[in-house]
């Protein structure tokens, strides 16, 4: 127990110290973790040592959670759109890399079996490092981001046939034991057709449970309003899927990814995401630290030339293959460079496969040591390569092809976030949706969310006072946040938090009445809408019309009233806490408003429209006796 706490302290301290420094230096969190790992590892401080491998195995669960979260963000429609890239680019990348590595090793005199096995192992890239880095830099939605993701997904799928293939390539005596990937899979010992059946059954179970059981279960937990139960249920879901997948011998990461995709259209998407996110982040961090710590500098020192040659060769070869594929796929120049740089490394599955291949007598100990070092170093190099792209390549490419834009149009990648979807919020939402603006909607009433979803609206359950939930709902990419919560105090609190934590978004807020409006203005919200004003003003205009005013005149008077009243409210917001000053100012404002609107005796409408009133013109004509027009010729 004490050992565990001690290691935990070391790992957490390393993360807490290294990551902020790395981020401040613009290196990204992944590089920070890796460096932290190197520092606490056996080569430098030696605070952690032999248990590095075990920690890495445990922390691989971070990858599992990451794929769950990614699955949540991916709707089935997007996945379907990526199918071409997944099979085409992914398949080409794996096969070509595999054959190229086999060819090169054959030229160095290795057996073809060893070459092929090494090729299969090195064809895989690091899902953890690539996705974490792309997400951190906000490149996931770019062309290169989407294609990288598709290739990584294909690689994760390819692990299963590779695991099946490797034992067939054995040239040496099998090492006793046999840990590896399929360990603990009881389905392994079943006949082939039963295994297939079990596999399909497991996948069907994930889809079925995700569709039919999870939503009602979460709904009832949501109604109980026990936040930690919700978190526990989210973790149970992820871990349950992972265990099920391991039992049937499939990749747990793929299983949770599938679970995520199934739940991507559910109303609990954002809430689940923000519940799992912190665990995912921490475990991934520990995983990266473990990768750093496991880099064997002793071995590298001994065989410096060989290891560095292997790293450079690995990165160069994968880069060349990916670059070629990107070109053939017709990606834009800067995008296919990013795509090739991002994926030019070995992956965490490589570690697993190396030990599996060694145990099965495919690779010798000497080769596997160099392979592990090369994979780890190439992973560590990736954030640096991405930094190179960001600092050197991207600025040039963008300068060269700056698009000429005629005007600002609303862009779908800058969505609107609506909080509170009662009568008020849903009217706003329907207007925006009708205009083709994509909105993310959060509401805290589980029953209402349920009903609205059955009407086909994209509404998510969630407590918007949680910053992490706002983040996972995309507030960082949003341009507008519209606060329509019925409870005025809650709405105000949200406005305060959001304008403080996310100053880039424009906040538009519903105000219950005048006092709410004052408070919202005071909290820094520039756009405040008193919920009853527009309806009241329309009613007033209709009343005038019913009393015999002309429709246009009453409508224009109402508009003028509304504008001035809004300006007054905004002005009075600065002094509303001083009761005396406020009262006298407010009295003056009311008098002023009445006077302005009533001032014009002839036109019942608006003073500013004096031009439509010919009084002064008539006076000038009357004053003339010779009938000449008022303008001298």
């Amino acid at each position, binding site marked *: 127990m004490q050992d565990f706490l001690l290691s935990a302290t070391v790992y957490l301290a390393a993360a807490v110290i290294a990551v902020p420094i790395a981020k401040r230096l613009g290196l990204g969190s992944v590089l920070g973790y890796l460096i932290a790992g190197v520092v606490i590892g056996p080569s430098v401080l030696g605070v952690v040592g032999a248990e590095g491998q075990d920690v890495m195995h445990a922390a691989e669960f971070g990858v599992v959670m990451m794929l769950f979260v990614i699955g949540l963000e991916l709707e089935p429609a997007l996945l379907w759109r990526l199918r071409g890239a997944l099979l085409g680019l992914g398949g080409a990348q794996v096969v070509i890399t595999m054959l190229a590595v086999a060819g090169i090793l054959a030229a160095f005199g290795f057996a073809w079996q060893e070459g092929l096995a090494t090729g299969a192992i090195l064809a895989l890239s690091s899902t953890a490092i690539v996705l974490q880095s792309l997400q951190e830099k906000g490149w996931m939605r770019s062309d290169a981001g989407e294609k990288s993701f598709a290739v990584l997904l294909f690689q994760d799928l390819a692990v299963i046939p590779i695991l099946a293939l490797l034992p067939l390539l054995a040239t040496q005596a099998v090492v006793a034991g046999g840990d590896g990937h399929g360990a603990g899979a009881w389905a392994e010992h079943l006949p082939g057709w039963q295994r297939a059946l079990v596999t399909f059954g497991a996948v069907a179970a994930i889809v079925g449970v995700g569709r039919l059981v999870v939503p009602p279960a979460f709904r009832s937990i949501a109604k109980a309003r026990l936040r930690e139960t919700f978190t526990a249920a989210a973790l149970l879901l992820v871990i349950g899927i992972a265990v099920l997948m391991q039992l049937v011998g499939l990749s747990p990461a793929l299983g949770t990814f599938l679970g995520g995709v199934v739940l991507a259209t559910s109303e609990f998407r954002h809430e689940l995401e923000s519940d799992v996110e912190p665990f995912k982040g921490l475990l991934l961090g520990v995983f990266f630290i473990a990768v750093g710590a496991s880099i064997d500098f002793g071995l590298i020192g001994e065989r410096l030339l060989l290891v560095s040659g292997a790293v450079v060769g690995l990165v160069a070869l994968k880069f060349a293959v990916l670059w070629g594929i990107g070109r053939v796929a017709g990606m834009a120049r800067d995008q296919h460079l990013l795509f090739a740089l991002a994926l030019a490394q070995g992956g965490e599955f490589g570690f697993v496969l190396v030990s599996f291949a060694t145990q099965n007598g495919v690779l010798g100990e000497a080769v596997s040591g160099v392979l592990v070092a090369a994979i780890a170093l190439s992973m560590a190099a990736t954030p640096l390569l991405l930094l190179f792209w960001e600092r050197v390549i991207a600025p040039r490419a963008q300068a060269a092809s700056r698009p000429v834009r005629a005007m600002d149009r609303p862009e779908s990648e800058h969505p609107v976030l609506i909080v509170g979807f009662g009568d008020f919020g849903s009217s706003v939402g329907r207007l925006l949706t009708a205009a083709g603006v994509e909105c993310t909607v959060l509401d805290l009433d589980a029953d209402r969310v349920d009903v609205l979803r059955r009407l086909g609206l994209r509404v998510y359950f969630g407590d918007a006072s949680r910053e992490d939930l706002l983040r996972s709902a995309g507030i960082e990419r949003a341009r507008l946040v519209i606060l329509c919560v019925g409870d005025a105090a809650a709405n105000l609190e949200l406005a305060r938090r959001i304008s403080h934590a996310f100053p880039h978004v424009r906040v538009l807020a519903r105000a219950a009445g005048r006092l709410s409006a004052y408070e919202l203005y005071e909290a820094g919200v520039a756009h405040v809408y008193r919920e009853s004003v527009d309806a009241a003003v329309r009613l007033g205009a209709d009343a005038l019309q019913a009393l015999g005013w002309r429709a246009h005149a009453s409508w224009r008077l109402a508009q003028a009233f509304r504008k001035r009243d809004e300006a007054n409210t905004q002005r009075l917001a600065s002094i509303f806490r001083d009761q005396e000053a406020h009262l006298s100012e407010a009295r003056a404002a009311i008098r002023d408003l009445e006077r302005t609107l009533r001032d014009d005796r002839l036109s019942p409408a608006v003073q500013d429209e004096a031009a439509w009133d010919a009084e*002064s*013109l008539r006076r000038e004509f009357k004053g003339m006796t010779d009938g000449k027009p008022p303008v001298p010729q």
Partner: protein
Amino acid sequence: MSRPVLILFAHPAYEKSRVHVAVAAAVRDLPGVTFHDLYEEYPDLDIDVRREQALLTAHEVVVFQHPFYWYSVPPILKQWMDLVLEHGWAYGASGRALEGKTLQVAMTAGGREQAYGPEGFNRFSFREFLVPVEATARLCRMHFAEPWVVPGTHVMDAAGIAAAAESYAALIRRLGEG
């Protein structure tokens, strides 16, 4: 520029226009030019008369930039003329606020030049259709410049649009230099 130019731009569907987007882009950032998009400023046609009058006072050249709708200006520009050009301010015995300034019409029309003439489909020339604007300028003691018209926008290609934008920018520069 020695004479500041105020472009009163009126297009109710700017986002759908091909020609005005290009033509406006060519002038809106020129030095000495104030590009004033009326539909953007007053989506509900509720024009702030005092503000508009102050803008007019501060500029020497006024340009009406608009498409030719039903042989006339778009409604907001007519509303603007109705409300801003007040008696006693813009015209009348004591209305001399605009005296000596230049009014330039810059408009686009879907039909070709040949359609606007005694023998053409529309019977009257652009200049004849613009008589109300010309008379307005005269009443306000403004100089009415020869209208700048881009006809045939329905059939115009990208090269034609680019040429129009260039010629418009040259016109605005010339007006600014006086």
